[in-house]
């Protein structure tokens, strides 16, 4: 059972699949794309780029299920937001289309709840593109994970860590640019403390600074993984007990968790984006 659960929740490079004669045209095209990635890209080119970092498992640049899901999210974002930008620009004073208004309200949510409370007025315009990207990218990854057959890209420490690295870099970049290179020494320690406490507090604050993105990483990963584990285990109970009654209860239970996961997908995207905004915004000013 551990194997099944972990097999669902862990990453594998895209492997070739056999094209059967009975497949219809759509399946054949999808399998063709899959085999193009698996054979032409993964086996011939990307397998040769080895990455060996001490402490981390040896790896290469082969495209995996998770990478594919990330790309699907990028594709969705592009397909939704690029035409949306044109539509919103065309109807300057509000579109009648429900589709446009739905996305507009979500963008307004990012603007009002994530960016505006954490940034000065003049930086909102600069910060909006980044945080909108973070929010919608994570949101689409989370929601794609709920589609049967797809997988949750954000339920992986490497993906959430990769996103949190941007928050860390953002904190450092904004701190250095806005408060000068000495920010890392004076900017992060509260003013008005005794001098002899300064080194100790500086060390604590520095560690705190590094822990913040780490907490982001683990929070998103744990939230997205936990729900999936529960759903899988609920369904696995049917196979364990081989009983219809268990089946009814399991399906009902996993449906409830599924709906909860829908909520969690939004909440976690919001939390990741809002905490990133808070961390990056707080290195704008000395505190």
């Amino acid at each position, binding site marked *: 059972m551990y194997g099944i659960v972990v097999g669902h929740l*862990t990453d594998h490079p895209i492997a070739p699949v056999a094209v059967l004669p009975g497949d219809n045209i759509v399946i054949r095209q999808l399998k063709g794309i899959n085999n193009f990635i698996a054979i032409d890209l993964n086996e011939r080119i990307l397998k040769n780029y080895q990455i060996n970092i001490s402490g*981390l498992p040896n790896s290469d640049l082969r495209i995996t299920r998770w*990478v594919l899901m990330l790309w699907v999210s990028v594709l969705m974002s592009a397909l939704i937001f690029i035409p949306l*930008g044109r539509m*919103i620009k065309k109807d*300057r004073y509000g579109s009648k289309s429900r589709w446009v208004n739905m996305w507009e309200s979500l*963008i307004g949510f990012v*603007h009002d709840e994530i960016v505006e409370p954490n940034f000065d007025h003049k930086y909102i315009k600069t910060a909006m593109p980044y945080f909108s990207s973070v929010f919608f990218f994570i949101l689409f990854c989370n929601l794609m994970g709920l589609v049967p057959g797809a997988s949750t890209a954000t339920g992986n420490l490497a993906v959430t860590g990769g996103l949190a690295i941007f928050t860390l870099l953002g904190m450092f970049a904004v701190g250095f640019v806005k408060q000068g290179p000495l920010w890392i020494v004076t900017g992060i320690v509260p003013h008005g403390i005794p001098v002899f406490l300064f080194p100790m507090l500086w060390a604590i604050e520095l560690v705190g600074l590094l822990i913040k993105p780490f907490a982001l990483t683990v929070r998103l990963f744990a939230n997205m993984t936990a729900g999936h584990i529960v759903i899988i285990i609920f369904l696995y109970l049917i196979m364990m007990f081989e009983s219809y009654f268990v089946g009814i209860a399991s399906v009902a239970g996993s449906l409830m968790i599924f709906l909860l996961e829908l909520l969690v997908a939004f909440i976690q995207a919001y939390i990741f984006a809002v905490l990133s905004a808070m961390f990056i915004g707080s290195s704008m000013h000395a505190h």
Partner: protein
Amino acid sequence: MQVIQEGLLKVDPGLLLWTIITFIVLVLLLWKTAWKPIVEALDARAEKIRGDIDNAEKARQEAEKLFGQHKEMMDRAKDEAAQIISKGKEEAEKVKNEIIEKANVSGKEITERAKKEIEIAKEKALTDLKNEIVSLSTDIASKIVKKNLNSSDQKGLVEEALKNMRTVQ
């Protein structure tokens, strides 16, 4: 460090790298094509709505001011109307009193004049009577003288004359 080598908590550097690349591509792709126009359009709309609200507030204040002026004017007009009515009433009262006074005065004058006329008529009548009596007396006297009547006749005549006088009176 064993825990991040395999299983659920595995941190795959390849996937990490792909995540970073993918995210950078996403941000660069959407920055100019999507987020910038959307944010600009939304900002412009917010600005317009703010302007509209300001204008509406101004218009409301203007309307309130006008309404106040209008009300003041109405009040003043009402006061004026009331004043005009009361003045009219006063004047009417005055005119009425004057007319009554005049009527009283002229009535008194008329009675006075009537009394005077009656007095004059009475006096005239008395003078006439006196003249009559005088003429009658002279007549009688002349008759007595003419006839030379005896004393009884004379007495009868005087009495007759006196009777006549009494009837005249």
